Every structure is written in C-alpha cells, then in structure tokens.
C-alpha cells in the first residue's frame, strides 16, 4: 500500500462522510430537544433535489445550499407542528415525512428541469476542491483535510460550533434540559414548546444542508434515490455518537471510508471478485454491527444514552 492510495481513500472518506456529519449533527440537535425525527432520509433527498434545481436555475451553488436549508427547515417545521402542537406519534410522523419526501423528490426530479423537464443527467454549478495555502502542504494531513470543497470546511466549523453550543453555552444547557426533563426545564421558566420547535427546524436545516452536499459537491447532479438510505444511517450514527457532535464525525468518517473502499474495489474489480451487489451491502451491515456494539457499550460501560424524554410528547396537563 502506498501513501498516495491511503491519502486518496481517506480524502474520499472525508468528502463522502461530510453529508452524514451535517445531517447527524442536525438530528443530534433535534433529538437532544426530545424530538425524534425519523424524516431524515426524506429531508435529505428533498434538500438534494431542490438544492440542485435551485443551483441549476440560479447558476449559483450557494443559492442551492440556502434553498436546500430552507426546505429542510420547512420540513422540520412540519414535523414540529405535527408532533408538538398536534401531538402526533413521532415515529410514524417521521416515517410519513420520509415516504412523502421520497415521492415528492422523485416527482420534482422529473419536473424542475429546464422548461418543466427532468433534472436527471444535467450538470449544474458545483463546489470544487479549494486547497488552502500552506496548510494543504502539511504531509499526509494537508491533502486530506485541507484540499476539499468549501462545504467540508463549513462542516469543520459546524462541528466545533455545535460542540461549543451544546456544552459551553446557557442555551445549550437549556437544549439538553428540555430533552432530559421537560418538566424541570418548564418549571425553571424555559419555554419547552418554543425551543423544541426551534431545534427541530434547525436540525432540519442541517439535514437539508447534508442533502445539498450530495447533489452539489460529492456526487454532483440529480438521480433517483440519490441518498440511498444515508438518512437512515444517520439515525444509527446519532446513537453511535451518543448524541455528541465529535463522535458523529468519527462515525461519519467510518462510513465515508467504507464508501471509499467500496468505490475502489468496484473500480478495480479485476483482482477481487466480489459482486457489486454484495459490496453494496457493506454500509448497511456495518450500521447493524455498529448499532449492536454501541448499545452493548452503552449498557455495560455506562456510556451516555439517549435523552431521557426522547420521543415523549410533553403536555403540561398530563403526568408522565
């Protein structure tokens, strides 16, 4: 194994994992507030298709990113309205968002192109690699970490900001409180309902951003089923990460790495004869293995588990 190959695999791992990091941190923020949003897959794919369409028509990848985040925020709002105000079952509402989002994305993919045509196969604006002077010349680390598209750099910022926010600010404390014990937070004067709305919307925006990274940087363009279940892997990554942004990066890199290796093996399929269909299973098998291992560790090593009030509706007038 030469150094170039390792650098290339790790570099792909990072860019492949970026959309997962955005979405996982978004879902962590939402789940920390006590709301379980299983609509990640639907929100990601909507962000991907509308983000790409907006970028294509405006000829600006940045506008694509902004629109994708707005769409994500809107879908987050729908989830919040249904589960917080109308007290709908959180699990089923999230599933409904995913089913609806997947169908709608498929519809829009055939309608949002030029003159009402399809988006499939079009090339639009995209984010390309920008190498940062000096830093990108650090051996090994430089070409991996500092020679990426700008959304990867934005991802570094989001990870640091989310960590700082959660553990070092008063608002972060409130966020954690409403997910652990909404009654206590409410008694302390924290507006549980408003904050749960806010963080479900913010989470949705980050998930939408994750989708935009797929269609504007990692695999530029739109194709049916672009997300390929990444939204569900995100749900598993949140558990793997123990609801901690830093651990989310580790998990996302692991999945990005599997993607990169898969990519490599398919490209050079001459020496190892594993059918592509079986290779494609790898990320999903890995997710199961990781879910099992993390749960095991959380049980026996007393790792931090899920927020205590996750998935439970909060209603002032009813006891829990």
């Amino acid at each position, binding site marked *: 194994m030469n150094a170039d190959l390792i650098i290339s695999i790790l570099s792909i791992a990072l860019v492949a994992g970026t959309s997962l990091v955005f979405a996982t941190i978004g879902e962590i923020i939402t789940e920390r507030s006590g709301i379980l949003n299983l609509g990640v897959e639907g929100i990601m794919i909507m962000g991907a298709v509308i983000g790409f369409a907006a970028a294509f028509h405006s000829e600006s990848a940045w506008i694509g990113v902004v629109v994708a985040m707005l769409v994500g925020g809107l879908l987050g709002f729908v989830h919040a309205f249904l589960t917080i105000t*109308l007290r*709908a079952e959180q699990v089923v509402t999230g599933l*409904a968002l995913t089913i609806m*989002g997947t169908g709608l994305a498929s519809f829009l993919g055939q309608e949002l192109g030029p003159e*009402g045509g399809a988006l499939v196969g079009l090339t639009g604006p995209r984010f390309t690699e920008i190498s940062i002077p000096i830093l990108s010349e650090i051996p090994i680390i430089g070409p991996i970490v500092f020679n990426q598209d700008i959304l990867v750099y934005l991802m570094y910022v989001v990870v640091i900001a989310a960590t700082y926010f959660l553990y070092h600010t008063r608002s972060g404390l409130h966020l954690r409180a409403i997910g652990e014990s909404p009654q206590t937070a409410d008694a302390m004067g924290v507006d549980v309902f408003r904050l749960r709305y806010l963080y479900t919307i913010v989470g949705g925006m980050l998930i939408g951003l994750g989708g935009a990274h797929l269609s504007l940087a990692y695999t530029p363009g739109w194709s049916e089923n672009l997300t390929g279940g990444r939204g569900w892997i995100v749900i598993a990554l949140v558990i793997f990460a123990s609801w901690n942004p830093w651990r989310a990066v580790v998990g996302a890199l692991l999945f990005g790495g599997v993607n990169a290796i898969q990519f490599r093996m398919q490209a050079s399929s001459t020496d190892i004869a594993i059918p592509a269909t079986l290779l494609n299973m790898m990320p999903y098998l890995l997710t199961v293995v990781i879910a099992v291992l993390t749960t095991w560790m959380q049980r026996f090593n007393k790792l931090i588990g899920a927020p205590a009030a996750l998935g439970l509706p909060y209603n002032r007038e009813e006891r829990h």
Partner: protein
Amino acid sequence: MIHLKFEKRLEQSRYSFVGVLVLSIVLALLFGALLLAYAGANPFVAYAEMAKSAFYSDWKETLVKATPLIFTGLSVTVAFRMRFWNIGAEGQLVVGGLAAAGAALFLPEIVTLPESPWVWIPIMMTASILAGALWALIPALLKAFLGVNEIITTLMFNYIAIFYYQFLYTDAWKDPAGRGFPGSARIPSFTKLPRFTGRVHLGIVIAVIAAILIWVIMSKTRQGYEFRLIGENPTAARYAGVNLFRNIILVMILSGGMAGLAGFSEISGVSFKLQQGLAVGYGFTGIIVAWLARLNPFGVILVALLLAGLLVGGDELQMSMQLPAAVGEVLQGMILLFVLGADIFTRYRLRVVQPPVALTSGD
C-alpha cells in the same frame, strides 16, 4: 383574547376517525392538484383518469396490488399494536419471496412429491413464512437481549435483503437459458397460484383469511391481549407480569411471517420468477396502510384497496398523460401526514376558552 385549548376526550370518538380519513384524503388531493397543475396537467382530468383506471377499467390490477399490501399492512399492524417499530416489512417480504422462489425452483429436484398445487402451495407458503419470520427474528433477538433499537436494525435488514436478492437474480440464481437477461428461471406450473381473472390470483383470498386470523389473534386471544397491553400501557404490562422478552419474539415472528407471505404471493401469483420488481415498496406502503386503518385488520383490507388504487392510478397518469407516477406515492404520504395531524381531534376536542377577566370587570 380568545384562547384555543385541546381538551382530552374521555372516550375516543368512534366515528370521527372516518371523518378524519375522508378529510385527509380531500386535503391530500388538493395538495396533489397543485403538483399536477405545476406539471402542466388539468388536475380534474388527471384525477378522473386515476379514478377511472383504479376502480373501473383496471380494477383487476388494483386487486393485484392490494394483495401484497394487505399482507404487509397486517405485518405492520401486529408489530405497531405492541409499539414495536418493525420498519422491516420490505426486507421480510423480499426474503419471503426468495424462500418461495427457492422452494419452487430447487425443491422439486431434491424431493419427489406429487406435482400438484395442493402440495406445493402450502410448502411455499410455509417456506416464506419461516423466512420472513427468521429475518424478523434477528432484530427481535437483538432488541430482546441487548435493547438494540429495532427501527435501525429492521430498516438496515431491508437493504441487506434487497441487495442479496439482487445478487441472486443477477448472479447466483440467474437463468443460464435467459440469454443474459437478469432473472431466475420460471417456477414450475404446479407452484403457481391459480388466477381468477386477469392477473387477480388466489393470493387475495389468502390475504383476507390472514386478516381474519390476525383479528382473532389480536382481539380474542390472551397473546393478542398481551401485545396490545404492552403497546398501550407498558407500565401496567410490567406490573401484570407480562413477559416482554417472549412477546417481542412472538410479535416479530408473526409480523415477519405476514410480510413473508406478501413475497410468496408476488412470486407465486404474479411474477413466477425472481426478477427486478419484487422490492417496489409494498413493505413501506404497509406502514401507511396499517396506520390509516388504525391498526385494525379489517380496516387494513379496505385501506389496502384504496392505496392500491392510488398506485394503479399513478401508473395510469404516467402511461396516458406522461406525468410522473410518483404522484401516487406523494398522495399516499400526504394522506398519512394529514391523518397524523388530524388525529388529535379524535382524542381531544378543541375548546374556545374565554378568559375570566369579563367576570370581574364591573361595567
């Protein structure tokens, strides 16, 4: 100022949910009309085409598509009644289909049995029930022993099953006489479900029998009572000494078996071989079916017919009006979202609360 407030109803309104469902369908159709108009079609014409196709000219196809939806709807119903989130009906359907196809393709070479559907249909049904149940059993055991989140495991098992099935029909079980086209060999004629008219096959009768069976199990047996108790009041279930471990295993065997039967009926009644098109989302649509039917087995039959009609209508839109077939899926998702949102009115009533200020003011 007027305040609106949700007040809990003492008894759930029994008929309001029919109203909720009808209202949700109307709202979803309105939303869909916007999409159709955007796509450059006249929504009235498009909906008329959909309805005509689904319930008049292609009513047989609606029955064909309703068959697997009844099975997956029942599968989800059983698990969701216990608040066990089995999202894996799609994968359980696929392994059920694999088992049925495998039994039909390879068993006749190994064992010599009379070549009669009376022998082979039950064998294939058993194989698919076992396969679906086994596939569901792994997440069930992981949940029961370790507490691994079943949403994640059942979902990932969908992908694993689907890729394995793709591997089989494009590689391991690919028909050597198939001139390079992906797909297995055809199953022998004695392993096919008899057809009534068009592609409508005996599977729909089996599905209705299954619904009756599930109703009996859920409503008339102690086991069904335990499933429901765990779902409705886990604390009470624990105090009553209900064995959660045992119930998780049993509910998933039942749920996986039902989804497995959906795969059987697709192979033995519709496609007659393994090929692309077994995993087209019936497992996921089963979630919508179950929830819209309020987890009632008989409701599942009716809702399955309705949603099958939407699928058939969506296909018709694509064929005759060149509109995306995804309209059918979007409508399904929207109906579910509206039902979820409107559901609160069956459990709560909206009261206008007058602030008490008026009483104290002295004018």
